[in-house]
């Protein structure tokens, strides 16, 4: 009987071809900062930087626009990354103790990162724990032929770049001569550092964590021994005449190395920079010589344990200059970009690159004062948690330039130094149109990003906190004053996860790109209208309060208070300046906003109702309560979860009591039984009118259409609620010259109760040809074709369960598609998108794009609502990813794959933004060129791979003799 429901579109080959030209799904690029970075590497020859993450991803960055990504099959943390300089080969070490080799492959215009092979040091079977062969450090030799691997067992393995063959070096002769405190049981303890001599490639400095340092020559096996304290890191001085060690007591030492005196026991200098009180370890140290004189010492950690032990610091020292960079998140790793030409005498570092857990900071070391260099990519999107996103396609140049100039005036203390990491060539054509991505944040800021290309670039930051009286205002100055002069801290970076007041959080954004008017709404019911202004200003903000309860009796708001606005005038920098503040009462979070700059109207909705406000005359036009009389939850505000918490607490107490009575075993058995008896159940009931939060306003829209009758169109406003109710208002908007005199009036025209009562996700009006109506100003400024006002308009209402097109003005159903009834998925996000064809420049179609709760994306034709294509996009478990998705008008989209990263995808076959770049690698392609184990020194008879690999842990005297002649 249901057969008639599935009228399948016949497979029209012509239509299929058109569809192929219109739609194609690609995940193109990841914007933002990688979540949980864990490793950093730099290739000075190719000028590429690689970042590894805890999820096993490797991301390579060069010049802006040059990037490629690889993902390990295993989801394990990347603990170390190393480049084979110049070869485009990357070596990664995961925390499951596997080594992986990656190569950058050039395919057409794109660079890819591909895994070539992986390797795991074989451990000894039997009693021996695998920790002996656990890799602690890696050293790819600069000559790229050999890889040294230090292990926890104290052995150093030599492998070729494909991990073929392995020779092991075990310094056991030393064993007897080394004092007891430098030993670790039967071995020398974990290898902490391997450093290649800057002048003599055959010399390797091996540092053990217990403090033993050995200078090993691969050719002549000369050993030079230094006895230090607990070792954290080693670094060569460029000349090779000395090296620097850093230690767990917070100090560092410089040790002389000369051929005449092979062994020294006294350092040249020994300093604990933040002493004399106990300090934390100096995790890593770099020593860079400069032509101008004193060397530059850069180290992380080493802070006085008691007073600043919790800070994440990196110190730059040069002569008397001393700066302690104070970061807001942990330092993962850092490197300097310096001269690598062997003929030059000095390092002369250009820049310092610091990878922190939440951002990347680059310091210009050439300019006095060591200012930061703004990063063209890896933007810390999440400097405060992202609460909403909004995308504007095809931004007019006028607005674009004004936003950029406002943004430029915001940044002080920046250099003119160019971005120092500039490997590769960006082949992507310059974007045809400018795109803006706006992100709203928990701290009340709105950030403007250039989303036109592959790298998401920060343009401008708007803060809305300064128009409110909040407790945090004077806090900053207090802490600033309380800080002592020493250590000379400098706050660097912008990651600030602590929100001053959660009520400041931005919930919804709407921007009119032609008039530069911005509407921003937040968690405490605040709705702010801002004008873009090129001059700074100092003015009072007009404040209005709109009561959305409309005398509905019996409700008391139990949530947060509204934010008190400042009563005096507030100074504003050039940029978007607040003009009007509307506060909803009760101050629940704003759930929907819209702006019509041509009519000077804004509309906003909360969980209680919606309002319409004339921001030109600063007067409320309309307020309507959407609450169902039975809806009590709506009034409890954000703390409504208390109820369920109480319940779950009660349940868990019951469970505990039960287990106490019946004993442990019995409880376990009971729990299993319970699990069998009550599996996951789902209740089947229709949605009812008094479901909780039924009054939440989900969407608002303005349209110039036919609501009164079929011959006269006029301004209208539409609002849709969580309970499937749509209100349509006819507006009387005075002409532009009478805006100040006449007031806007709104009259309820239609009320549509969708029978299935599912939340209304979106409302859009289509013109006579079935196209979406243009945006305000588009027609009057000749930027878009005038809509068809002759034919009959229709309204497209998308609920969580189905799409429906109604004819206007009669509101009679025309077409519909019941997505949930067919597929069992619910609509989460929808957008009207214009798809242009790859085959022909002029051909384009409008489509309804829909993201469901299962994470798949469907495209439907409009107004016929015929399914076109379906793609899997987001994992259905990734709820925050689905919730964060935004679509662009041209068929691309963004969603958060982590708190700090947007994945960009495209549904259009034509409009694709992906990295197109070229990396010229100098890689010997013939593997025979690199014979396995080219180092003759290690070809001693007993050191062939199969024997030595067996001896990693336990050592014998015979072994020692073989190795150490």
């Amino acid at each position, binding site marked *: *009987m*249901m*057969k*008639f*429901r*599935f009228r399948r579109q016949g497979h029209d080959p012509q239509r299929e071809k058109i569809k192929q030209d219109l739609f194609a799904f690609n995940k193109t690029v990841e914007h933002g900062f990688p979540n949980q970075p864990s490793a950093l590497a730099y290739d000075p020859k190719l000028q590429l930087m690689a970042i590894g993450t805890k999820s096993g991803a490797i991301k390579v960055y060069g010049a802006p626009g040059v990037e490629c990504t690889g993902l390990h099959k295993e989801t394990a943390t990347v603990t170390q990354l190393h480049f084979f300089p110049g070869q485009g080969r990357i070596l990664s070490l995961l925390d499951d103790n596997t080594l992986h080799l990656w190569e950058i492959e050039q395919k057409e215009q794109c660079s890819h990162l591909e895994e070539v092979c992986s390797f795991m040091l074989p451990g000894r079977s039997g009693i021996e724990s695998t920790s002996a062969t656990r890799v602690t450090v890696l050293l790819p030799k600069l000559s790229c032929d050999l890889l040294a691997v230090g292990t926890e067992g104290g052995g150093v393995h030599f492998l070729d770049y494909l991990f073929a063959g392995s020779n092991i070096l075990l310094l056991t002769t030393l064993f007897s001569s080394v004092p007891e405190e430098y030993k670790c049981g039967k071995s020398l303890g974990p290898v902490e550092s391997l450093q290649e001599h800057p002048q003599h490639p055959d010399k390797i400095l091996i540092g053990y964590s217990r403090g033993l340092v050995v200078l090993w020559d691969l050719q002549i096996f000369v050993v030079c021994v230094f006895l230090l304290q607990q070792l954290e890191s080693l670094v060569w001085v460029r000349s090779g005449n000395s090296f620097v060690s850093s230690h767990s007591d917070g100090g560092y030492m410089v040790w002389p190395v000369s051929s005449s005196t092979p062994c020294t026991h006294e350092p040249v200098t020994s300093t604990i920079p933040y002493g004399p009180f106990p300090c934390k370890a100096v995790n890593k140290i770099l020593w860079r010589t400069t032509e101008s004189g004193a060397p530059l010492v850069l180290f992380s950690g080493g802070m006085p344990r008691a007073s600043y032990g919790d800070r994440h610091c990196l110190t730059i020292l040069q002569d008397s200059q001393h700066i302690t960079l104070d970061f807001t998140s942990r330092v993962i790793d850092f490197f300097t970009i310096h001269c690598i030409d062997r003929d030059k005498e000095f390092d002369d570092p250009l820049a310092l690159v610091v990878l922190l857990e939440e951002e990347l900071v680059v310091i210009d070391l050439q300019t006095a004062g060591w200012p930061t260099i703004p990063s063209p990519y890896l933007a810390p999107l999440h400097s405060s948690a992202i609460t909403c996103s909004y995308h504007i396609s095809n931004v007019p140049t006028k607005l674009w330039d004004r936003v950029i100039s406002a943004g430029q005036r915001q940044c002080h203390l920046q250099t003119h130094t160019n971005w120092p990491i500039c490997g590769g060539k960006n082949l992507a054509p310059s974007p045809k149109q400018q795109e803006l991505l706006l992100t709203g944040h928990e701290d009340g800021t709105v950030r403007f990003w250039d989303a036109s290309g592959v790298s998401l670039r920060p343009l401008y930051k708007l803060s809305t906190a300064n128009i409110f009286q909040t407790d945090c205002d004077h806090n900053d100055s207090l802490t600033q004053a309380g800080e002592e002069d020493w250590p000379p801290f400098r706050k660097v970076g912008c990651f600030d996860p602590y929100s001053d007041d959660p009520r400041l959080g931005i919930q919804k954004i709407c921007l009119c790109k032609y008039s530069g008017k911005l509407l921003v709404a937040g968690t405490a019911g605040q709705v702010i209208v801002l004008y873009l202004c090129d001059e700074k200003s100092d003015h009072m903000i007009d404040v209005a309060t709109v009561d959305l309860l409309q005398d509905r009796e019996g409700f008391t708001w139990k949530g947060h208070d509204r934010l008190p606005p400042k009563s005096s005038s507030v100074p504003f920098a050039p940029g978007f300046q607040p003009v009007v503040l509307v506060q909803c009462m009760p101050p629940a979070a704003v759930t929907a906003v819209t702006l019509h700059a041509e009519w000077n109207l804004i509309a906003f909705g909360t969980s209680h109702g919606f309002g319409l406000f004339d921001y030109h005359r600063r007067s409320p036009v309309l307020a309507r309560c959407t609450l169902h009389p039975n809806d009590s939850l709506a009034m409890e505000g954000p703390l409504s979860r208390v109820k369920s918490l109480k319940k779950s607490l009660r349940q868990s107490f019951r469970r505990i009591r039960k287990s106490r009575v019946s004993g442990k075993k019995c409880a376990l058995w009971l729990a299993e039984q319970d699990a069998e008896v009550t*599996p*996951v*159940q*789902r*209740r*089947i*009931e*229709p*949605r009812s009118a008094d479901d909780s939060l039924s009054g939440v306003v989900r969407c608002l829209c303005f349209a*110039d259409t036919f*609501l*009164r*009758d079929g*011959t*006269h*169109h006029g*301004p209208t406003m539409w609002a849709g609620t969580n309970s499937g109710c749509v209100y349509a208002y*006819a507006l*009387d*908007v*005075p*002409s532009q010259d*009478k805006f100040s005199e006449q007031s806007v009036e709104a*009259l*309820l*025209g*239609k*009320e*549509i*109760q*969708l*029978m*299935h009562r*599912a939340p209304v996700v979106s409302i859009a009006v289509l013109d006579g040809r079935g196209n979406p109506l243009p945006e305000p100003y588009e*027609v*009057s400024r000749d930027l878009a074709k005038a809509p068809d*006002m*002759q034919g009959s308009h229709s309204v497209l209402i998308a609920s969580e*369960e*189905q799409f429906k097109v109604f004819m206007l*003005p*009669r*509101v*009679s*159903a025309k077409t*519909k598609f*019941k997505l*949930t*009834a*067919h*597929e*069992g*998925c*619910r609509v989460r996000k929808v957008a009207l998108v214009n798809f242009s064809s790859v085959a022909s420049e002029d051909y384009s179609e409008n489509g309804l794009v829909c993201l469901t709760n299962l994470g798949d994306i469907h495209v439907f034709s409009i107004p016929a609502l015929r399914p076109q294509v379906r793609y899997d996009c987001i994992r259905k478990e990734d709820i925050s990813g689905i919730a964060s998705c935004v679509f662009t008008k041209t068929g691309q989209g963004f969603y958060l794959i982590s708190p700090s990263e947007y994945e960009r995808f495209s549904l259009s076959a034509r409009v694709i933004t992906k990295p197109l770049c070229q990396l010229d690698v100098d890689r010997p392609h013939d593997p025979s060129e690199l014979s396995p184990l080219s180092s003759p020194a290690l070809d001693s008879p007993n050191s062939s791979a199969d024997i030595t690999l067996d001896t990693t842990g336990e050592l014998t005297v015979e072994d020692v003799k073989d190795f150490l002649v």
Partner: protein
Amino acid sequence: CLPMIRIPEANSLSFEAEYRRFALKKNGAGSFQEFYQLLQTIHRIPGVDVLLGYADIHGDLLPINNDDNFHKALSSANPLLRIIIQRRDEDEPVVFPTNSLQRRKKGLAGLRPSQQKNKPALLIGLPQDFRQISSIIDVDILPETHRRVRLHKHGTHKPLGFYIRDGVSVRVTPQGVEKVPGVFISRLVRGGLAESTGLLGVNDEILEVNGIDVAGKSLDQVTDMMVANSHNLIVTVKPANQRNNVVHRGSKASAGNGSAGSGGSALSHESAHSPASQTVSQCSNSNSVAEGDSDDDDTDLIIESDNLPSYTPHRSLANGNIHGNTPSSGVFGHRPLPQSVSLPSSSSLPTKTSSSQESMREDGNFITL
């Protein structure tokens, strides 16, 4: 004192309606016979055979033909009771089905209160006097081990009343017995629609929801599909208890559905294909229009505003300047909503019937599409 109102006497020949309003003491109402005679007197139609019906709180038209349902009708008055009187017409079949207010045109004939009044025998209602809540359908095309059940949610305040869960189903395939994930009914709520039909049972495997195979769908997906179809839910199940299966094709099957009195397969077929369930409308209006769509379950309620004034050109001319295609002359005094009809409740009744309806009515009229 109970005010009562009598609404149209819809004659089958003419649609002349006549409204009368009168009061009746709530406790002194007496028997159905007395009431019937009272009506005949008030309307001056002694001796004419009429059918009585009333609109219950769900908007359904229910018959008044004995003492019991007469008293039930009185108790539902709040405070008005709308009674519909219609001349008996022998030709037309009778239905008092779900949403019967919409089909009033078919008439109320077939009820035989007047003949039966003299008979001392117990009055047993005909199947037509009951609202259909469920049916077994498609018996002829389904395998005998399966059952396709239609649940009519409209007009009842009973919950559908069942829960579903994940489980493992055993399928016999050419390769042998195979275990596949399936969705099962896990619980029936006491007093719910599902339980009262007797057609669904715990551990019945759900195979289809409104014609769509659920194989490969997650529990949440199946839940969403069922909720989306809940107003007209058709589930195909493989009953855990296979003993009550329909054995012979085409037989008049009505399995364990005593109270509901589903009328067998022939009737069920008809109801499955016809738009059997329609919007529950809170008011009866002979101008109600049923949606022409064969798709039956979601007719949205569209409330038109009465106070929306006609188009006024002097204000909109301003916008006309911008768009340039507004006609220069407006039609003054033109009512834009030709289909809107004023309600008896707002035109002839000074008292509003109930507070819950009030909010919906204050803005104007209903049009049911």
